[in-house]
């Protein structure tokens, strides 16, 4: 579904992505883990077009999306969330998600019809928010929502684009541990046809919700495997626990 071919990126002399080639099949839940500064968020930025690679290709299905702008990639079915809440503070939750639906449907350019005449978009937005347990907060401004609810709204905005691939950049960042499992349970309940790649530091969550794990270190993919394979891998233990624990 989503693949990259030898993607490279440098910021000056700092290598942030080196020869990254991956292939994410449809419907698989991937976790992307690695120490701070490994280049995980940069990889998501490269895939979504927010940062241009120096070389390499990014493919969605069979289509090379490397030359496309971020919003064009979204329209092809590639959505993302942000590590730090990147929302619309003065829009209500319903307005925010409705906007996302309207953009997807190509209605957002319409300036002569009133919003209430787009009830299908509003209904769909309400349905998405309800599926994420935000039904009591539809008409509250985003800035008034609790932090955990804002994290869910991040996901709702992405889901409203009807993605084929969803990239979640630390969706539970800042969320108390008990609530993060709830958040990932919502992610787990998404369509089985949806490919999900999420960055997460909580290994309990990673091993519980990921069916495959990618480990990134120093801008390179160190290893890819099932949770069991990753748990046994000496190189991963070395990265996380130091050389003494590698054996």
């Amino acid at each position: 579904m989503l693949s990259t071919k030898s993607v490279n990126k440098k910021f000056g002399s700092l290598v942030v992505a080196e020869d990254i080639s991956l292939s994410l099949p449809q419907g698989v839940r991937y976790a992307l883990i690695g120490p701070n500064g490994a280049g995980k968020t940069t990889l998501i930025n490269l895939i979504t077009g927010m940062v241009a690679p120096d070389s390499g290709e990014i493919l969605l299905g069979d289509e090379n999306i490397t030359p496309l702008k971020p919003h064009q990639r979204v329209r092809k079915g590639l959505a993302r969330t942000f590590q730090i809440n990147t929302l619309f503070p003065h829009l209500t939750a319903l307005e925010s998600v409705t906007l996302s639906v309207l953009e997807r449907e190509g209605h957002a350019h319409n300036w002569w019809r009133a919003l209430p005449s787009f009830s299908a978009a509003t209904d769909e937005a309400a349905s998405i928010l309800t599926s994420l347990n935000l039904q009591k907060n539809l008409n509250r401004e985003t800035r008034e929502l609790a932090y955990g609810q804002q994290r869910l709204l991040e996901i709702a905005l992405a889901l409203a684009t009807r993605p084929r691939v969803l990239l979640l950049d630390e969706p539970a960042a800042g969320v108390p541990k008990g609530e993060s499992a709830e958040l990932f349970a919502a992610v787990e309940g998404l369509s089985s046809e949806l490919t999900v790649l999420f960055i997460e530091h909580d290994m309990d969550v990673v091993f519980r919700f990921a069916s495959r794990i990618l480990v990134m270190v120093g801008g390179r993919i160190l290893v890819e495997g099932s949770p069991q394979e990753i748990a046994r891998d000496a190189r991963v233990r070395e990265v996380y626990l130091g050389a003494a624990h590698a054996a």
Partner: protein
Amino acid sequence: MANVKLNPLEVVFWLCTLLPFVLAPSYLSLASQIAITALFALSLDLILGYAGIVSLGHAAFFGVGAYTAGLIAKHYWTEPLSALLLAGLLAGIVGYAMSHIIVRFRHLALIMLTMGFGLLLHEAFNSASDITGGADGLQGFRVPGVLGFKFDMFGRTAYAYSLGLLFLCFLVCRRIIHSPFGLALRGIRENATRMPAIGAPNLAHLRKAYTIAAVVAGLAGAALTHTTSTVSLEVLSFGRSADVLVILILGGAGRLYGGLIGAIIYMVARDQFSGINPQYWYFWIGLLLVAVVMFLPNGILGGLSALYKKRQ
């Protein structure tokens, strides 16, 4: 979701705009100027208040509209409505051309760019004195009236014309704000980074908003020409761009009525202050601006809105 019908308070506001015909018939010329300035401020609100484009060169479109109407009246015909449409169209074309550069910038660079474009246009019209009259302005024409009503010396027809135009444009702008496109503009204002991540073509949205705002500003400029039968180079001046920004900040940006309220307060204050002290009246305008920004950072309407919410 926003209500798209005029609420009772709005109906009262618009009914009050008719009061000058009865209560202040000797101030109808001023009322006409206020209506035109309000329309100009409304156009700036579309881009500043809703799309977050700060402009210090918005008079460029006002001036293009004013000169288009003037040149048509001087050289071709004096029927104002068709000239009004042409003025809006030409201002829109200039706005669309400029928007390709403007929307790529934000913050300080954007302010400098818009100011630069405004100054460029001002000097271009100044140097093309064979056509524009240069520093002397465009004179020697008279628009006799509109729809069979003559522009009288008391400003009765002028105010009716300006107010009618303001009301029509307001309804259009209101519809735009309450449309999906208006929601997209608010989205860009709120978070321009997030918008592409939900599939929004920010630049295309901003280009469209900028063009529409240019059309409305052009209409305001043309209305000024029609109601005064003269065009001075001042219509393109930096001062006019700065004034309209002050008006919007006074009234409250991003509220549609902010520009209207700001225009009323600013123009009445200017009229009164300049009557008291013709030389230093800007001192009082400055004081008013400082007071509003310090105590009502979201403008007069923003302050009233906050007070209303607090009471509720």
